[in-house]
């Protein structure tokens, strides 16, 4: 049987807060569905094999690679894209510090970087540079050399008020009690020079 003969499958899901119902071929990726069916072109397909991270979306509150998920696998899921997160102001601090630090050039990886940073800060409000780099380890940037992105995430983290609450409602790992002094960032292995 040819792929093109396959019966379409009905999917229902939420995208950026709105219910969506569609019929999709089984082989359509979530990335293609969001981009081509819903015109949400903010996520980018840089590789199609789950390595570069530019296709990041939030799926039920956690980052996911839309290029390696099938649309049918998103049945019943709550999807947020860069557009949705941006429009509801969830990325405001990061977007500002990214601009201030030159944390983007061509912009193709930027949605992936912003979503990875957003997820990090929700769990770890005061990350060390090493923790930031680790959190960004799933997104390729070919333009900036990463340093400005790390600086931008650190700058956003150091701003009050505290970061977005975790999607699962649990307290953040490093969140200090409300009357404690600002948390110390863990000492990092400094560069030798």
């Amino acid at each position: 049987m040819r792929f093109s003969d396959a019966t379409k499958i009905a999917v229902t899901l939420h995208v950026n807060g709105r219910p969506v119902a569609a019929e999709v071929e089984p082989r359509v990726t979530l990335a293609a569905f969001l981009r081509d069916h819903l015109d949400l072109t903010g996520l980018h397909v840089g590789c199609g094999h789950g390595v570069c991270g530019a296709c990041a979306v939030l799926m039920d509150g956690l980052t996911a690679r839309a290029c390696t998920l099938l649309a049918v696998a998103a049945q019943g899921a709550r999807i947020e894209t860069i557009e949705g997160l941006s429009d509801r102001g969830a990325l405001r601090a990061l977007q500002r510090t990214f601009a201030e630090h030159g944390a983007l050039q061509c912009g193709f990886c930027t949605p992936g970087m912003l979503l990875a940073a957003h997820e990090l800060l929700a769990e770890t409000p005061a990350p060390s540079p090493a923790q930031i780099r680790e959190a960004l380890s799933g997104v390729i940037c070919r333009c900036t050399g990463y340093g400005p992105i790390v600086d931008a995430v650190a700058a956003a983290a150091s701003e009050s008020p505290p970061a977005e609450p975790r999607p699962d409602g649990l307290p953040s790992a490093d969140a200090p009690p409300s009357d404690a002094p600002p948390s110390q960032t863990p000492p990092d292995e400094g560069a030798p020079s």
Partner: protein
Amino acid sequence: MSGRAAPGLRWPRLLTGRGRYVADLAVRGAREAAFVRSPHAHADIRGVNVAEARAAPGIDAVFLHDDLAAVLRPWRGSHGLFPDLAAPEQTALARDRVRHVGEPVALIVGESRALCEDAAELVAVDYAPLAAVTGPEDAVAPEAPTLHAEAPGNVCLERAVRSEGLEQTFRDAALTVEATFGFGRHTGVPLEPRGLIAAYDAAEGRLVVHHSHQCPAAMQDAFAQLLGLEERRVRVICPDVGGAFGIKQQVYADEMAVVAAAVLLRRPIRFLADRLESMASDIQARHHVVRGALAVSAEGAIRAIDVDDIHAIGPYSQYPRSSAGEGRAMLSLSGAPYAMAAAGARTRAVFTNLGMSGHYRGVGHPIAAAVTEGLVDLAARRLGEDPWAFRRRNFAPYDGAPRTSALGVAFEPLPFAACLDALEAGGRRARLDAWRRDARARGVLAGYGIAAFVEMTTRGPGFYGDGGVRVSTRDGCTLRLEPSGAVRGASSVTEQGQGVETAVAQIVADALGAPLDQVEILTGDTAVAHHGGGTWGSRSLAVGGHAAWTAARRLRAEILEIAGALLQTDPAALDLQGGAVRDQDGAPRIALSELAALCHFQPHKIPGERQPQLTASAAFGPLDAPFRAGCGVQLSAVEIDPETGLVRAVDHVVAHFCGAVVNPLLVDGQIKGGVVQGLGAALSEELAYDADGQLLSATLADYRVPMAPETPDIEVLHVERPAGAADDNDDAPPRFIGVGEAGTAGASAAALNAINDALAPRDAALWRIPATPARVLAALGAIGD
């Protein structure tokens, strides 16, 4: 010059998911495209059967070579300055032979990419495989198969420069050091793959191409030439471009096939390369084997350098620039930072059955720097001398006088010593030595190394123009004053993230005394911009910025003249600042918006019966100077795990001289980004092919670009133009030197020297990059080669 860290003009859109890359554009009625590509590195095509594919669901057409030949002619990457450069004819689709894995054979156009790929699987090609040439030494071996009858020995171009008495200089030298360097095959991996949408209107003979590309004017010319269209009826528009680095600089066979198909089909066709086909078909670069030698006196003075370079290109000379570029860098830049009496350089560009070759950020600079700096470190080590002091003694003097290098290249004086001073400042070496000592005490192989580099920017017309290559080294800018007092303009520079569009807007704002948010610059559309060079070779700001500055000063002059007439004041006593015409003491006399509205809607109110033009245009390009040089010294520190051979870059510093800085955020961005690409080349990136020419690094999981955790913090030190230089004269534009390739030019050289410093206590050395764990362990003798 303001030197302000203004944010990129496109960033508000790009930060909110509102980018408009080629894949995001909606063109009514556009069809999609997929290719049948060769699975063989070298094979005859005995036959192709497309009947089943043509009948597949949703397919408009299947094109083979002969189908396109009616509208598209073949091309040759020849060069008028090198009449003996072998430039075999290349076609968009293979005709009777394929010469690299991934070469396009058939083009499928249809309703969706998925359906086109389905149909591609139904195309039957009968291949008769041939022996393949798979590397630089492979290509010149006596028994190597010959790719093209017109290129015996697979040589595309061979050139050599040799000083008088070079052999004698080496014989007389107290010390000669030698090494054979190997450089892996690299590609730029812009995160947005290549793509275009081609739309042809047969009624008007009009072609519009939305193209992820660096050089829309050059592509406009190429489309007109190769398709026999009137140039004025061809328009190329570059939307947001997700990185380029030289990979999107040239003519591609698959892209030409799509445009030809659009002409034949008379429907818009969109082609978006996916990453798998990009890895096989994007241009590749930097694949060299270089034998190098340095002759040194007993007092540690460099006497001569001699390099013999083989550059493995792909099966064709690149078009339109030809494949002379990387070899030319070896002939110009080997030994460039140093004074020496004699030098020799030989380069051979050789055809292989590996992927198509082209220009990737730096174009030969990284190779020349790594060879030169590796030999310099080797000499210093043999003499038991500090490599920094050795370099100081031997740098070409910065005494204001231009010099001609031993290879015959004229260089402006370059402040290498000042760059080295900047690296040494603040006790950095003491900290590095302490770190190295501590790391070694922990059983880690640790080392640091430096590399001096020259960056040839802002090329003049003597290479391409005089070579009959239709690539412009000029750019232009047109500005006009709108009724609101805002300035709107078009520039022929192009933007792929480096920020040149923003820098041009800053230059215009500065020259007009206007707030930056009152300046709007459009780039990337050949219908409105000058025919310009676009972005390549670290030139767009130096050239396009100069044109923008000149246009802005012309507009300013007219504005002040009109203001002078209105205010009955000598224009020379007026200034333009902060959106208003002012007295010299800053008192506002008339808002620019008021003046503009008057000119547009009530021009009769201006004394003197004037016709306000309020439009200014300027174009600029270098004339006599073949290039403008930037320079610097890079420092790399690495740790190597002796058990696994894994090399980790832990620190990197660039001391850089680049002339006037318009926007330090953008300049640093270019250097840092370039450094990381250079580190990738040194440590992990390699397009690996097997003995049959099969591409093994077929995905981003295999072609390993640096990721955030393995990338060090990069420090950039700007070395200012030393005093005494002509500068900051209102009647002349600031002296811009390009910067885009500075990072890549020296980073892998510095990393290689750091690696060898780390290996030195084990009496081991490595002269091949990338320095993969296997290669490092082999150098340590821990595993066999």
